[in-house]
């Protein structure tokens, strides 16, 4: 079974061919890239089918002797996870290649761009099929570099260069920690091959002393998992290394699409690839969860203060990546991949469509047409009881109905299906958020619309629930494997109850405020609240001043560096 090698080779060959013969090929440049990716896509689909039926494929390319003790082994590990990722990457890549044909037409760097795109696709594919930590890390590095080079595609543009630089440095921080994790993994387990590493980690419960004299001991697995996780934090734009993504909008739109649909998922993939390892350390999973939650809150709140469509999408990605990491922290590794795929597809289409939106708004400077008459209409609409009732009904009833129907119709035993519970919790929160948004936009103006909307939400909810469960068992088919991850990540039940309670409280409070607002009985309109809102806006528009703090640190380091350089 050597077909998986071809999946990687086609984008690479296309990249090399375009780079070397770019000038002679001219208009055929894009065609070569597209054809290579289409072939890779079909091969990836076939591989997915093959590994689903026949099981995992393990290919060793170097060293040729399989018994070799060499630490650096080049090969491929194509299991269901890798196959799913390959299908996602190649499909998104085809769309991006096709989109770029017109987008970059006439650009002097046309051939260079397609060569870089092919190279980055090859690197991402190599990451998802790496059979060991070291090979994964090598391609992880190449991805950092490839991303930087493609971000500074327009290298005479100072903003693009500055943001590419920032991105690379953030990734570099994560890479140092990742490398250190690899050092420790090799020292304690003597192998970096995934299957052997998981086995060795399970049998080894040593502690590591990070300070002299044994004053700070920590479980070896936890230490390694945490160090490697920092690599994932950097790549997936998680707090506190989240500052690079929103600033990369100066790059060509296809690059943004590739980044938001493919590259940024690397962190989530990394956690999934190492899921059996992370499952051995509950505290690490809890830290992963907390980092994810912080990122969601920051991403979603900063998104509210944006007025640029691409930046809004950038912060949305940040929040979505937070969700993905949080899911991993909850042990829902397969759901994170499910989320990753769904997000990758919809975010790529949003980015590719963003240009059209921006273009339309430039064509129609008076749009949206806003008048005093509209304000009156708006008031009338917002006071509608219908919208309020629909929203409250959906947000409160939906999870209950889904739970009951899912239990009876789909035969999902909730006490054993931690994933379903997590999934329902998120769908509840998301639905509530959607309902608030629709209420703000006065989208629910009649019973027909309300019914259609509720029906659609229920349908989507069921399909997602069913698909999520099926996907979990598809990705981790081993008996009790997926459940084992949930158990490893389980919080104290009281903590989870508290989270649900707080969420319920916030949702009810939201609807109460909306109701009183609709009745003209505004609450909390005192001056200090207005001031808080203003201050919050300033805080959010300045990204919680985190970028500023980093910039100050950098400036201080540079000042110190100049002093040192003078004496060197």
């Amino acid at each position, binding site marked *: 079974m050597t077909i998986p090698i071809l999946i990687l080779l086609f984008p690479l060959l296309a990249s090399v061919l375009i780079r070397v013969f770019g000038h002679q090929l001219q208009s055929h440049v894009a065609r070569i890239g597209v054809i290579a990716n289409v072939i890779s896509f079909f091969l990836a689909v076939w591989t997915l089918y093959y590994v689903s039926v026949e099981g995992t494929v393990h290919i060793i390319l170097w060293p040729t002797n399989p018994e070799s003790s*060499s*630490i*650096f082994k080049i090969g491929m590990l194509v299991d269901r996870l890798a196959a799913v990722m390959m299908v996602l990457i190649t499909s998104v890549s085809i769309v991006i290649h096709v989109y770029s044909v017109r987008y970059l037409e006439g650009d002097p760097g046309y051939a260079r761009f397609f060569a870089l795109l092919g190279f980055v696709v090859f690197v991402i594919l190599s990451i998802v099929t790496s059979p060991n930590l*070291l090979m994964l890390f*090598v391609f992880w*590095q190449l991805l950092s*570099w490839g991303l*930087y*080079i493609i971000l*500074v595609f327009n*290298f*005479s543009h*100072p903003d693009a*260069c500055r943001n590419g*630089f920032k991105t*690379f*440095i953030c990734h*570099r*921080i994560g*890479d*140092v920690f990742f*490398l*250190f994790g*690899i*050092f*420790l993994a*090799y*020292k*304690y*387990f*003597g192998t970096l091959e995934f299957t052997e590493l998981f086995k060795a980690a399970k049998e080894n419960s040593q502690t*590591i*002393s*990070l*300070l*002299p004299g044994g004053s700070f001991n920590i479980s070896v697995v936890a230490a390694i998992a945490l160090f490697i996780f920092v690599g994932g934090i950097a790549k997936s734009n998680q707090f506190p290394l989240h500052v690079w993504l929103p600033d990369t909008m100066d790059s060509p739109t296809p690059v943004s699409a590739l980044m938001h649909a493919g590259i940024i998922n690397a962190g989530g993939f990394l956690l999934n690839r190492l899921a059996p390892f992370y499952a051995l350390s509950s505290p690490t999973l809890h830290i992963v969860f907390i980092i994810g939650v912080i990122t969601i809150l920051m991403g979603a709140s900063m998104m509210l203060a944006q007025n640029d469509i691409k930046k809004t999408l950038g912060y949305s990605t940040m929040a979505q990546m937070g969700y993905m990491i949080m899911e991993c922290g909850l042990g829902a590794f397969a759901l994170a991949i499910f989320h990753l795929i769904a997000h990758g597809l919809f975010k790529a289409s949003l980015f590719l469509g963003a240009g059209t939106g921006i273009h339309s708004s430039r064509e129609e400077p008076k749009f949206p047409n806003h008048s005093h008459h509209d304000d009156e209409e708006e008031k009338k609409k917002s006071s509608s009881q219908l919208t309020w009732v629909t929203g409250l009904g959906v947000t409160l009833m939906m999870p209950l109905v889904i739970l009951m129907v899912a239990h009876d119709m789909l035969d999902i035993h909730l006490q054993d299906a931690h994933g379903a519970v997590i999934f329902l919790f998120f769908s509840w929160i998301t639905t509530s958020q959607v309902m608030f948004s629709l209420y703000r936009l006065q989208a629910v103006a009649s019973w027909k619309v309300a019914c259609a909307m509720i029906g659609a939400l229920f349908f989507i909810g069921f399909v997602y629930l069913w698909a999520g469960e099926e996907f979990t068992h598809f990705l981790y088919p081993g008996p009790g494997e997926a459940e084992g991850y949930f158990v490893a990540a389980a919080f104290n039940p009281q903590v989870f109850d508290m989270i649900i309670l707080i969420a319920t409280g916030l949702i009810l409070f939201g609807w109460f405020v909306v109701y009183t607002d609709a009745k003209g009985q505004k609450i909390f309109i005192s001056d200090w609240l207005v001031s808080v809102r203003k201050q919050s806006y300033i805080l959010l528009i300045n990204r919680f001043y985190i970028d500023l703090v980093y910039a100050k640190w950098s400036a201080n*380091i*540079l000042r*110190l*560096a*100049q*002093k*040192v*350089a*003078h004496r*060197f």
Partner: protein
Amino acid sequence: MDSQHTLPTILALIPLALGIVWKVAQISFANLKSIGLTTIVVLGILLVTTVELNSSVSFLAFAVLLSGFCVMLCQEGTEQATEVCSSSMIALGLALGALVSQGILSRFFLVGLLGFGAFSINRKKHRTFKTTLILIHFVIAVVLSLSSALGGDALKVYAGLFLAATFLPLVPFHLPFVGMIEGAKGTLSSFWVVVWLAIGLAELNMIYSSLTAEMLFIISLLALVSAFYATLAALGQKQSNLFVASATVANVSLVWGLLNVFPSFPEWGIAFGIAVGFVLGGICLAFSFVQQRYGWQVIGKLPGLGEPMPRFGTAMVFLVTFALFLPFFPAISGLTNMPSIETQDVNFIKVFFMFLAVWLGGGWFLLQTLHQTAFGRARMDVFYTDLRTTEFVAVAVLLLGATYSGLCY
């Protein structure tokens, strides 16, 4: 004395003699360049075919020859070019002698190299306190170099360590190296980078097995300081040669720092050290081309060269890319040799900080330099001329050498 002992010395004397003759005689530059290139190629062939050398020593000797070849190749017929060619031939002969000769002869060549370095620095018009310090350092190195050949084992180790720290620059023994690179004329600075590292690696290779655990611990602490100090210096450096010198010290500190974590120094350290020399020598060479054209010495004064000088831009991108991945080579090759569980955790913490300084700091200062030279908007008031084919080939050959050293050797 048998021919295996005398032949390497004779081979080393050829470029030395040629260099001295070129210094005093009036020879046309075209002839001089052809003779120089042919001599280096012939020396390479002779070293392979007639002399039996330790694999590490012959690798280091070839690195010096390759670097000398590149510097010679990119010269054009100017007054400075003749001076550079003769100086590089003298340095090549002395370095080759120090590497391939044995016993006291090797020490004489080393003393000659130190003397040549001291002489170059002493020619400076403005003598500063730093220059005086460097000259004192040279004198101590000369004394220790001679005494190491004549003294006992303990003296050999300490003298060897001092010389290794001088040539494979480790803070606070880095001043002669920095002085040499700063004061070197034109493309010669690139050659000095490789020569100094090659000699330093050879010295360290000789004494490595005699270093005790306590000595290794102190060395690793010094290396940590060296890594942070040199990285900061590289970050704040504006003068191109000084930038290369600081970046080299920062990268080389990894060799010193990893000594007590990864055993079998010759297997990972020499390859890495030479890869550092080639890549940073390549960057130095590329800088010197720009300096020759526009009198440029301050990084950042002439940005955006990638567009009007595509060859220079390509060379810089490849060199910086390679330099960014440099710390990766000792990490992989060192891990291969590392005894897994025996290594102490505390040493790992030091290694972590070393990598933090060199890897992260390296990423910062190298990209900053790339942005200040190749990227950005080009100035409109300058008439640009791209690199000539020979210049581009010279940089490419160094890069290929680094690739071989880092990935294959």
